[in-house]
């Protein structure tokens, strides 16, 4: 199964179609240029002037290479990683050489094979330095990925939920054995999903099914108090999302939005697609003051971190408290994901 993670294992090339990656390359190469200018110069003002002069070289090359790499984004990951790396370095070197030839043609530069070679070497080195940086970044994040996974695992299902659900199932065994059976099967499915390897993106439909099972179990013990409204419109079938992205949010919605009240409350979940973005909206009633929501903040931070690991800057998660008419408050979570098909 393919994934759109930016740092898949054994494939150290970054995903050049990701805005975060592009931004990092732009900033990184410009920093290199600035450092180069500083080394050559005699003073700070001089170094800035040199940097500006150098920009005429650096920026066109950068934009050209970024566009080319983004276009090659679907092909590169399929090559063996060493070959792909070589392609990137050679592209940068060749485009630098071409540019100096173009400037010679425009009579801005005197040309000569020495200067062409120097440009090619500089371009290639800059590309190699950026690749090296991305490889380092992958390494720096992989323990974080494992840790985030562990953290997520422990934070995800509250023991409170497990024991209360078991208690509810026990109460059903004598009166409604069939419902008890279904509930135990659902609990088993839920824990199977929780204990799976959590690194690959999963179809959105699977995550929704998991959430429904979870909510069925909660409904078992909360009964009429828990209402759920789903609204799923125009969501592509093959869309993938990070595993267990929604379930912890729903668990919080029930824990902080439904359980503290003896009145019935509604949890609303809405999916919609706007252009190349998938928007997910969750809403639940809100009672506690903010300080009582420590557990909720932890889960939100956790999911935000995982979104950043999967999508860099392209995914967002926002939360807000909304005052409704009649003094009621609602808590909203809004998630925006890039809607990229998994098939290259």
């Amino acid at each position, binding site marked *: 199964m393919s994934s759109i993670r930016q740092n898949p294992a054994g494939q150290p090339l970054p995903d050049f179609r990701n805005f975060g990656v592009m931004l990092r390359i732009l900033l990184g190469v410009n920093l290199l240029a600035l450092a180069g200018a500083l080394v050559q110069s005699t003073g700070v003002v001089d170094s800035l002037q040199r940097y500006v002069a150098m920009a005429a070289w650096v920026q066109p090359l950068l934009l050209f290479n970024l566009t080319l790499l983004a276009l090659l984004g679907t092909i590169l990951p399929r090559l063996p990683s060493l070959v792909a790396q070589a392609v990137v370095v050679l592209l940068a070197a060749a485009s630098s050489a071409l540019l100096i030839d173009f400037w010679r043609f425009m009579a801005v530069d005197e040309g000569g094979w020495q200067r062409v070679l120097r440009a090619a070497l500089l371009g290639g080195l800059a590309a190699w330095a950026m690749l090296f940086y991305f490889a380092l970044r992958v390494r720096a994040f992989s323990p974080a990925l494992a840790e985030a996974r562990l953290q997520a695992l422990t934070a995800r299902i509250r023991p409170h939920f497990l024991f209360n659900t078991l208690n*509810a199932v026990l*109460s059903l065994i004598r009166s409604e054995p069939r419902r008890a059976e279904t509930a135990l099967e659902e609990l088993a499915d839920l824990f199977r999903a929780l204990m799976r390897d959590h690194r690959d993106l999963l179809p959105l439909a699977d995550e929704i099914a998991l959430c429904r099972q979870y909510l069925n179990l909660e409904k078992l013990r909360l009964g009429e108090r828990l209402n759920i409204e789903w609204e799923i419109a125009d969501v592509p079938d093959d869309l993938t999302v990070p595993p267990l992205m929604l379930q912890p949010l729903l668990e919080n919605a029930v824990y902080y939005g439904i359980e503290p009240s003896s009145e019935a409350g509604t949890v609303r979940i809405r999916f919609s697609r706007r252009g190349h973005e998938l928007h997910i909206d969750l809403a639940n009633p809100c009672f506690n003051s903010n300080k009582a929501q420590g557990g909720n903040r932890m889960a939100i931070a956790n999911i935000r971190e995982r979104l950043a690991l999967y999508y860099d800057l392209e995914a967002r998660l926002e939360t807000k408290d909304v005052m409704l008419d009649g003094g009621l408050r609602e808590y909203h979570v809004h998630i925006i994901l890039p809607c990229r098909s998994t098939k290259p």
Partner: protein
Amino acid sequence: MTTLSVIIVDDEVPARTRLRDLLADVYAEVPNAVVAEAGNGLQAVDAIAAHAVDVVLVDIRMPQMDGIELARHLAQLEHPPAIIFVTAFDGYAVQAFELNAIDYLVKPVRAQRLAAALQKVKQSRPASPQVLAQLQQGARTHLSCHERGRLLLIPLPEILYLKADLKYVTARTASREYLLDESLTHLEEEFSERFIRLHRSALVAKEAIAGFEKSLDEDAETQWQALLRGIPEKLPVSRRQWPLVKSYAKQLSS
């Protein structure tokens, strides 16, 4: 052995069903009868007023009034029923129960454990109010007062002011006064978000302040008084507290 009358307090219906089943299971060992069920602390107080109750099986996490607060109110009764806490998972509370030898059961409850807890009930001493106060997370939702053998609950939002007179503290609502067996200092600490101190012996609900007016006291010195919503009474503000109260009032009007 006499039959124990039991009340089950839990917000989840299946949890109550489960306890009822188990109580029936242990009947041979410990004769018992479930006299009422309640979905939260408030309903439980009503149920306990209506029935003679020996044992209350109470969940900790419940809406409106949680189990710990219920226990604190019940402790004021002349003959409080024995309380056995039932909790799904609450590491902090369970630790405190162990430390203070308070009876508790963990969900899912086992029949033997339930029987053992019921058998112990007769000899066990009720948990002290101080311990329960420590266990409570956050402020109470009600204050309670014991009046002619009945437990009266006063919802906090209805309280306009709290005043200390000699031995007692009085809570004033729009309709009447209640005598409380608590200290003003403790109340001030617990409900610091809701009340503000006007002088040595009075706390007023911030929401109940309608305004302030100046008057002259016996020594012809200016004295500020707080006007209250809903009742004609005025509460004097001490000279010491005035700067604090004034800054709060300014904060409100801005």
